[in-house]
Structure formats: C-alpha cells, structure tokens
C-alpha cells in the first residue's frame, strides 16, 4: 500500500538511491516494502546471483529483472566434485546465453560454477555481447582450449579472464595468441588450470601492454626464468600464481630473481609454487611482507621449509598447505601467524593411509597460536574428542568448521568412543557457526547436539555417520537457518527424508546418496510439496524400490526438461 505522504519520490530518485544498495540481501529486503520499491529494485538491479540454475528459468529472471549486467550461476550439486553425479546430469549454460543475448545485450559479467559450458557456448558468448568484460569459469566442464580462442579473439573489452579448476581438454596453448596486439585491458588473467605451453613471447607482450593487470596466474609450463621476465613487466601485481618453481639457476640468476620479487611490493596473494624446493623458496621472501593469502597446497614442503617461509609472512590471514608439513609445520603456523583466520590442510596422498600426515596435535598448536582462526578445512587420519574441545575453546569464533577424518567411521583413537562429543563441543562453543562438515564415528547423539545448538548453521555435510532416522530428524527440526544439506552413506530413510517437509522450501537443496531412502518416500515428498523438484538418480544395478541418489530443491520453474535418462523427476 503506497503512502502518498513520504514515499512520493520520483522513480528516478528512488532508482538512484537503490544503486547504492550493493548487497542483494538488502535489495531483497527493500523489494518487500511496497510495490513502488519492488519496481524500483527490479528495474535497477544489475547483478544477480543464482545459486541453483534450476531454481528459476531464464524467462522468469528476465521478466523480473530486465536490466541485469552481471550474472553468477551455479549448477551441479557439490557432490559432483567427487564423481557422485553422472556427467550428463545437466546444468548446461547455453539456454541461458541464448536468452541473455536477446534480452541482456549489454551483459558484461558472467561467473559460472559447476556448469556445463561447450565451445559453441563460448563462441556464442564472444559474438553476442559487445560490452562483455568479465568471464569466470570455476569447476565447469564441457569445453576445450579451442573455445577460449573465441573469447580471446572477440571480447575486445575483456578485463577479467579467470579459468580455474575446470575439467578442460587442453588441446594446445595457442588460444593465448588470439588476443590481438592492441588488446590491453586485462586486469585479471588466470590460466593456471590449463597445462599446455603457451607462446611465451605473446604472453610477455600481453603482460607488458596491460598496465592495469593486478592478478596474474600462470600455468605450470611457465618456467622460473620466464616468470621473472613477467614480474619485471608487472611489479604492480596484487595476486600472483607462479608456474614451475624449480630450475637450474646460477647464484647470479638467483640473486636477480630475489631482487625481482623484492620489487613486487604489492603482492597480497601467492599461489602455484609447483615443485618449489628449499633452494628456491627463499627468492620469494622479499615479497612476503604484505602477504595475506598463501596457497602452498601444490608444493610438498616439509616443516623446516614452512617454518622459514612463515617467518617472513607476519600478516598472513589465510594459509593452504599440504599435510607434508606435518604437525611440526603447523606448530610453526601457530608461532608465526597470529593474524591467521583461515587454515586448509590437504592430504598429499589421499589414498595412502600409511602416511602420517597431520594429527590433532597440529590443529591444536594452531588454535593456541591463532585466536582469530574462524575457517578450518582439515584432512587427517585420526582425532580425539578432547583435542577438538580444546581447539574450539581456543577459537570460539569458528564460522566454517570442516573436518575430514579420512578413514570412514573412525572413532576417537584414544578412547575408542564415537566423535559425538567433539562436534557437540563445536556447536555448543561456536555460536556463529555457519558451515559444518562432520566425519569419524558418529551416532545420533552428534546430531542431537547439532539440532539443539547450531542455530546459525546454514550448510551441513554428513558422510558415513548417524545411527538412525532420528539423526537427520534432529537436524531438520532443530536448525532454523539450514539452507544446504548434503548426506552420503548414512542410515537415514524415508522417515528422515519426510521429517524435513516443512523445511525444504526455505532451503536451497538437499542431497542424499547411498542412504535408505526409497522411491515411495520420494514420491510422497514430491506429491506433498509441489514447489520442490524431487530428482532421483538411478544406478542401473540397484533394485527398483531404492532411491540411490536423491536431490531435492525448491524452484519456481517447475520440473526441468533437460534431465538425462538416469534422472527421474518425481
């Protein structure tokens, strides 16, 4: 209902005011105030972030927001990263591009995560949008380096080219040579995903022309000597991913490399460092003073090398390492990085369980030295309840707590009890917790704790855990803010699935695989909640009544039309 007193701004003024609303959450709120504000928002909204490409259709999006310039689209469920989703499942971006070409000709930014992107789509994109500036492809698949040729050739205003962790068929590095010799607008250039050798002279000239280049992430084929040449041309870099960090250098060359890094005073983020060894790592020390993010997860450093390196990184906020650094290396983290907020420790050899890697001692040491720690991803072989309780006592501000005990159903190795108390401590102490991944031997008690205490939890990942339906029920009934629930290999059946009836429309999605859900249970859910898509992915070998993989998500677009034969929308 419109008030004629205070809300009689001309629309233009309202639009102008709204352009200052950059957060989409704020915009969603203002659009609910009244019709005038709803319209003002919809006409002025230029950025949309669609977290599930099947929750809405291109037509519905365009109808509501006709003036969008920046689109972010996410497609496949996260468990597709771990080969649990068939490759032909869907999430093809092409239909979106066709609709955008018609209605959003001024589209300038496209960010895709877990979407299928073909070479034809890349070519279509390059031809359709004259003002296109920023392309980001993250964990996508379906294209080859040939498709990138079109982007390089035709996107004359490109400022961002960000190709990261995609499944790309790398036919050759010639795509880079398709950037014209007059093209100079790049600010972000990330091709570390691609393995083929690129024409280094073309790369050198490109970097030399792009005076605004802030982010440069090269691939492994770029040698240390070549990297040095690039750094001389771009000392203004803020983010750098190196290529191969190992080469036969003379003493003189080493000193030159060191001085080169010394000139790069703006570097805040460093990654790559493939094959980096103790011999060459010291070259980067001069550039580490302002480093806030260091990604060593592709360099198998030992504890001593890490220790020496970290002494030069006092401002570090985010650190990613391999478990080759061991508990000793993590002690160095605790001693040298008081400002640390995020730690990720990846396994160097996930399938060899004879490797010690890191234990609870490592994370404990970090928690004592880094009170600001609020994000952890930790792969280890074993843990204890007591250690986890101490860790969260030291760091009560965790927002993201992702623990992966690599042996499924592993109990506390000292007491042989389930790990229920560990996660109980996490949810009781960390009131700000938004994301939780649990592992180890867990009974329903762990989920009772989660349901009772995790009042801000939004994303929960569960694998090989729980004793009965009650586990999942506790979560569905207890966590008011839950948005995304991913479950695999747990004894949760139809009762558990149906306990979430009230919740699923306020959630983004639910994934359940290798649980005890039946087709009948799924049909009942689909029938009761028509605004949900209940998709079942069938494996050939299982029996007909069992629902192997279930993906449930809210949508205003109805059942999708592009499911492959293995996917049934009920």
């Amino acid at each position, binding site marked *: 209902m419109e008030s004629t007193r205070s809300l009689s701004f001309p629309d233009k003024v309202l639009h102008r005011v709204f352009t200052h609303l950059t957060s989409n959450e704020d915009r969603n709120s203002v659009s609910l105030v009244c019709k005038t504000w709803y319209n003002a928002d919809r006409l002025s909204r230029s950025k949309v972030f669609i977290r599930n490409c099947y929750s809405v259709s291109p037509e519905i999006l365009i109808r509501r927001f006709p003036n969008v310039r920046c689109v972010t689209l996410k497609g496949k469920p996260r468990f597709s990263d771990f080969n649990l989703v068939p490759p032909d499942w869907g999430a093809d971006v092409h239909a979106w591009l066709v609709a955008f070409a018609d209605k959003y000709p001024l589209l300038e930014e496209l960010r895709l995560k877990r979407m299928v992107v073909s070479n034809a789509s890349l070519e279509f994109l390059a031809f359709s949008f004259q003002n296109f500036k920023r392309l980001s492809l993250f964990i996508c698949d379906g294209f080859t380096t040939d498709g990138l040729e079109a982007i390089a050739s035709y996107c004359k205003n490109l400022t961002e080219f960000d190709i990261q962790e995609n499944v790309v068929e790398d036919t050759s590095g010639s795509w880079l040579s398709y950037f014209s010799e007059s093209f100079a607008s790049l600010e972000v250039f990330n091709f570390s995903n691609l393995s083929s050798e690129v024409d280094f002279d073309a790369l050198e000239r490109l970097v030399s022309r792009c005076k605004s280049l802030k982010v440069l992430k090269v691939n492994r084929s770029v040698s240390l000597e070549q990297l040095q040449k690039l750094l001389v041309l771009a000392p203004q870099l803020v983010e750098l991913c190196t290529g191969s960090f190992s080469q036969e250098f003379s003493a003189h060359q080493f000193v030159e490399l060191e001085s080169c890094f010394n000139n790069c005073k703006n570097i805040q983020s460093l990654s790559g460092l493939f094959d980096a060894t103790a011999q060459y790592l010291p070259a980067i020390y001069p550039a580490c003073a302002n480093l806030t993010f260091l990604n060593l997860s592709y360099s198998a450093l030992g504890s001593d090398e890490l220790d020496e390196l970290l002494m030069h990184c006092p401002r570090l906020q985010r650190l990613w390492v391999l478990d080759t650094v061991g508990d000793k290396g993590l002690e160095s983290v605790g001693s040298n990085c008081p400002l640390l907020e995020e730690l990720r420790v990846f396994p160097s050899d996930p399938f060899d369980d004879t490797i010690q890697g890191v234990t609870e001692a490592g994370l404990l040491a970090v928690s004592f030295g880094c009170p600001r720690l609020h994000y952890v991803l930790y792969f280890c072989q074993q843990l204890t309840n007591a250690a986890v309780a101490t860790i969260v006592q030291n760091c009560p501000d965790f927002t993201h707590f992702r623990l992966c005990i690599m042996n499924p159903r592993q109990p506390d190795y000292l007491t042989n009890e389930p790990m229920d108390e560990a996660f109980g401590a996490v949810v009781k102490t960390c009131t700000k917790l938004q994301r939780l991944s649990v592992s180890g031997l867990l009974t329903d008690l762990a989920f009772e704790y989660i349901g009772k205490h995790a009042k801000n939890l939004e994303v929960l990942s569960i694998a090989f855990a729980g*004793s009965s339906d009650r586990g999942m029920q506790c979560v569905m009934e207890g966590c008011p803010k839950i948005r995304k629930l991913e479950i695999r290999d747990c004894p949760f059946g139809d009762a558990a699935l149906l306990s979430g009836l009230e919740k699923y429309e306020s959630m983004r999605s639910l994934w359940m695989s290798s649980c005890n859900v039946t087709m009948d249970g799924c049909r009942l859910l689909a029938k009761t909640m028509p605004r949900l898509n209940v998709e079942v992915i069938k494996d050939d070998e299982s029996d007909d009544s069992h629902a192997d993989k279930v993906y449930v998500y809210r949508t205003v677009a109805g059942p999708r039309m592009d499911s492959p034969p293995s996917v049934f929308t009920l």
Partner: protein
Amino acid sequence: MERLVSFESHHDHDLNLKATELRLGLPGSDEPEKQTTSSVRSNKRASTEISQESNTNNSSVSDDHEDCAPPSKAQVVGWPPIRSYRKNTLQAKNKNESEVGAGIYVKVSVDGAPYLRKIDLKVYKCYPELLEALENMFKLTIGYNGSDYAPTYQDKDGDWMLVGDVPFHMFITSCKRLRIMKGSEARGLGSCV
C-alpha cells in the same frame, strides 16, 4: 541395496557403547553389521570393506576424469572428498618428483685416505651439519683454526672452490664432488664456516 550399520532407534538416546564392542556372531544374530564396524575401526584398510559391503555405486558411476588410484586397493567412490583437479595435479607432481630422483650423491675424497666415500647432500640443511657428518665419517677435524684440513668442492664449471662462500641451498645444486684438503695449502684457508 547396501548394508549399512542401521541401529534400531530406541538404542540411541545414550552413547550407544554397544556399537563399540568387538563381537563375534553369525549373520542373523544381533546386529551382524557391527562386525563390519568393529573391523572398520581396528583395521586401517577399512575402505576396502566398506566398498565391498556397502557401495553399489563403485562400478556403476562412470568416471570420465577418474584419477589413477593404486589398482590393488578398492576405494569408496568420491572419498576422501578431494576434487579431481587437485588429485590430478598432485599426481602429476608426485610423478615428476620420482623421476627427478631422491638424493644428490657426490664423491668425497680426503687427502691421504686410501678410498673415497659418497654422501647425499640433500640430507643436510646447513654447512655445520654437513661438516659434522664429514668429520664423523673420516674421524678428523675440518676447517677450524689449527686444523690440517679444509673442505673444498668442484663446481659445475670444473673449478675448485672453498666450501662456505655461497648460501647452502645454492652450494648443493652446484657441488659436483668434495675434497678435504690437507697440508700447507689447507692451513692457509683456515676457518671458513
């Protein structure tokens, strides 16, 4: 349909210590799946049992970008949860390293000794460590004031250099052989580290 541990719900208001008991029992007796759980806990090669027992998904999920896991060990699909990109990159890295070789072995000769030795330079982190090892190996004191011995090395260009001038990590890559010199020449060189 896979057989997972599925306890009756009325067991689970307490810690369910029964679950942690090691028991023997015939299939069909009280919750036979517990045997699997017990052996899972005590045996590190748990994933083999899990994949055989529980996962019908193993062979049927087609993997276009399947990593090359060691073929002898049956694994649970998608566990541990690591992205293919990371697995493939690490594997490429591991392959590279094993091709390059483990150590840097150089010959060590001592003036007056009847035969040479070989040491792996990669084992040492700094000059003092290296010298201590050489001293232990040959039972002599090297390089300090008054010592008869001085450590020298032949670099990539074939020149004989005094040990200790360049940073250790650089020395390791350029050293081709070591010679512990004795006599008047050595005394002149004195303490170099």
